[in-house]
């Protein structure tokens, strides 16, 4: 899948591994913030001019832009964090993210195009079991801002088209 480093060896290969590990570490911290409900921290994983969209695979495949969540710019992420934390009414719940199969797709200038699979589980207080709330993949564009990796774009593309009732927290 690596366009630029198909041989994936030597120094370039090592740099690739390091980048992959950096992205994986980023995702661990990203998920930790979400699983712990630190939504303003979550917004800080993004650049100021970011795009963050949660959309169904149905829409993505058909080239349709509508997202369950559609944010242009970090202020919209922060507004969403405020809405969830300050104004929204919903049943209490725990969510947990599992991210695997991270890979670097290609680099284009400063931007790193990469992706991962994700699994989001949800536990409501009135049921013993966790449900698989979403299963999908991240399609990401990363950049470095002052040496720190940030998301310029994250599209969360979920396979299970039929969402169970509601999606409260970001993915």
């Amino acid at each position, binding site marked *: 899948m690596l366009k630029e480093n198909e041989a994936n060896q030597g120094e370039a290969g090592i740099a690739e591994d390091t980048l992959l590990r950096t992205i994986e570490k980023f995702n661990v911290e990203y998920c930790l913030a979400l699983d712990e409900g630190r939504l303003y921290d979550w917004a800080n994983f993004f650049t100021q001019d970011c795009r963050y969209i949660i959309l169904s695979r149905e829409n993505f495949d058909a080239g349709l832009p*509508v997202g369950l969540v559609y944010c242009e710019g970090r202020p919209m992420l922060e*507004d969403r964090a405020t809405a969830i934390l300050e104004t*929204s*009414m919903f049943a209490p719940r725990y969510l947990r993210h599992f991210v695997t199969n991270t890979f670097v797709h290609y680099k284009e200038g400063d931007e790193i195009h990469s992706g991962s699979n994700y699994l989001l589980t949800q536990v409501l207080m009135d049921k013993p079991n966790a449900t698989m709330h979403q299963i999908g993949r991240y399609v990401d564009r990363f950049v470095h801002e002052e040496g720190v990796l940030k998301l310029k774009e994250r599209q969360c593309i979920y396979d299970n088209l039929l*969402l169970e009732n*509601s*999606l409260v927290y970001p993915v």
Partner: protein
Amino acid sequence: MGWTLVEGATELPADHGVMAVSISGERVAVFRVQDEYFATGNVCTHQFALLNDGFVEDGCVECPLHQGRFDIRTGKAMGSPVTEDIPTYATKVEDGQLYVDLDRQAELADTQSVALEDKPSADLEKSDGRRFVILGGGQAAACAARGLRDANFTGEIVLIADELELPYERPPLSKDVLLGTASTQEATVLDRQAVETLKIDLRCGLSAVQLNTGTRTITLSDQSTVEYDSVLIATGARPRPLPIPGADLPQVHELRTGEDAISLKRALKRGGQVAIIGGGFIGMEVASAARKLGCEVTLLEAEGRLCARALHPRAARYLHEIAEASGVEVRTGTRVSAIEPHGSVVQLNLADSEPLLADTVVVGIGVVPNCELAEAAGITIRNGILVDRFGRTSANNVFAAGDVATWPGSNNAQLRLESWHNAQEQALSAAKTMAGIETAYDTVPWFWSDQFGHNIQMLGLPTPSDEFYVQPASQDGGEVIYLHDGERLSGVVAFDNTAAIRKARIWVSQRLEVSTLLGFLKTASDSAGDTRVSPENRRKLMNNPAQYYVWPEKGLRRIPDWVYTDPAIYQLEVDKIFHGSTWNYVGLEAEIPEAGDFIRSNVGPTPVVVSRDEDGEINVFLNRCSHRAAEFCRELRGNNKEFVCPYHQWTYDLKGNLSGIPFRRGVGGKGGLPSNFIASDHSPQKLAVTTRGGVIFASFDLNMEPLEDYLGPRITEEFDATFNGRKLKVLGYYRNTLPGNWKLYHENLKDPYHATLLHTFLVSFGLLVAGNEAEMICDETGRHGVMASAKSDAGKVSEEDSKEMRAYNAELKLKAPEMLDFEDEFDSRWSVTMMTLWPNLIVQREMNTLGVRQIVPNGPNEFVMNWTMFGFEGDTDEQQRHRLRQGNLMGPAGFLGMEDNEAMKFVQDGMKHSLAGEHLIEMDPNTEAGTADTLISEAAIRAMYKYWRKELGIG
């Protein structure tokens, strides 16, 4: 036979332990009470039930079936409904083991009573000189005779029974006697020995023809006379005659007497077709016996539901269901106009349908009380002989009890009850009062029936309009219906659940407050309606739902839970609403612009295909292969020339016509379809189609009125404001399940009251405040609605209004406020309209974010919501992005949409997890139902249910 070891008896719990053993084929119950052991027969003498399954307390065992109690020391039957004692056996403990001897009765510490016989009064030889006369030969008469002696009446008892048999009870006649598992003798309640022991002057085959209350003289049918000091009239009732020609044919039976039972048993044993006229308890029990004997049974009931007089509609529905499940054809609302001989059988002519042939006809249309004697004597009659709580009639020294007596009841409702229990208890209190011990009859009315392998018991006197809680079947027994008048418990009906009846007896007698009852029933229960209505029974059952569902008396201001939770109601909605005369949204024209384009969709729960054919026409037809029912179209959308069912490749063209059948003519001249098979007769069902403004609607009713008429002028105007001729552009979909009843979604958007309270976001940023210009518009029918409002500036919220809005928070500011910008692109005074188009469409115009939402119901407790978000052809990139950004308000993750979905789940959870009840829909009393000019109104919800009830035929 001697002593037999009973292993394990000494390990019984010391506190009321009980076990069943079999000794030489005899069923024996062994009881332990501390260090004492008792052994008795283990079979109830009333009806077959094992006593070890019952409850032991206070030295008695209570039969699990009908709560008859026996003293475990003496075997004595302790009264209603048991009269015959159980045998007792001697016990002894040796070397830590228990032994029982079947040949010996239990030895009693105090030998004052002998278990197996009526107690002969020691003083009976010394009569007090009075003579009490009892008229009648049934349960009440026999019970009164015993009751007089129990009350130590030592005078003369004369019992005048008009039949030749010894007094007998009637419950077995329609059950075991018909089946041949019991003889009529076993129904005897006063046998020769008892007559002798109790010194009763029994005169069978005689009846009273005249009563002179002045001279206290009765003239009998043999012209002899009897003088009395007191008389009890317990002459019962006789079958109500069927007032139609042919009722006297030999094939036509009734069932009241032992003779009737024997004659009917003979007829039923011959099998064949049995027609039962009358769907009361007698009719139902005869139907049950006839089915067991292998007859084909049709039950004809003139009323709209079974047991209309005696049973709450909810319980009647259950009986209807079990009768049908047992193979009885139940036809309610059916009148018989005549019975005619037809060869060896008879023909029943029915008022509204084809005649019915039957080998045997049974008439059970109720009884008329035998009160002519009393009436001629000038005694007050009110549908029966009117008595007080002590059984006293309007004439001195004249009492009445049982089927013939009308009793004040609670709140002086003047009821004539026809139950075994009523005969027993009323006769007992009358007898005691006659004997000088004033005893009021005010036990809780209790009734039972055994039919189709089920035991049904009812306590109290509920009325059809009572509300109810249902406790579903559990391991403790079958369903229990608790009926109440809104404040207090009025009755209980239990199916195969004697434990529940036992518990509820005291609650009903105390008329427990509903809130207290809820506490007692706190074990989490799914009171969400009867989930056991089998689909095949629903349709028949629901011919007349008004007979089974009674709306609360408070009318439009209440909505009972079963509206949202009952599977039979849901089925009715699918039939009468989604498959009825309604326009259902199926898609947008923008989704299928080209010939061959198609989408999968639904009308109600039913899958359909929406396709555009070569002529540019839109077609909607069932997504169901005519061959083997396969849902042949599997893709969400696409383009093709035809549809091919993958199973056997049957092919359908774009208009939904069956166009190709592989190997139709077989191979090599063999196989294939019959030559006269016409493919065009077998196309999937096609629906009527209409469009407006790019929106596609379909209907199962091919004669639907035009959409404009269906919507009405006000709704059409609002519809056209959104769909104003610009070409739509689909921007994408959301799909979610919602664990609530589908109507809750309509109600949520006919409920402007919730908007300022639930949606803090909306209010915080000034999109909707209580003082906004707003209107809740309804069409004339009440089925459609538009919740409309005009955006105002949050800065203008008055102090007064903001106090009313719990959610208002002047501190909150958006960092990206452009999300809420409103570009006025519509010719409308409203910036927001939420349109509910009956039955399955919501049109969202939330400023500039636009969408249609399709409701696909999936049972009473869940539906799927398909959101199609759109803009317009020619939108600039920035316009489209504005719609997408503003879209964060809606959908299942939207700031508003998510809260609605959550709230509706809470509502359904409340109904599913708590006890059943009603919703309070009282807001805005000045508008009964319809358009409201205030947000604090529920008048639109009331309007919707006014329409819904009419459509479903629920009063």
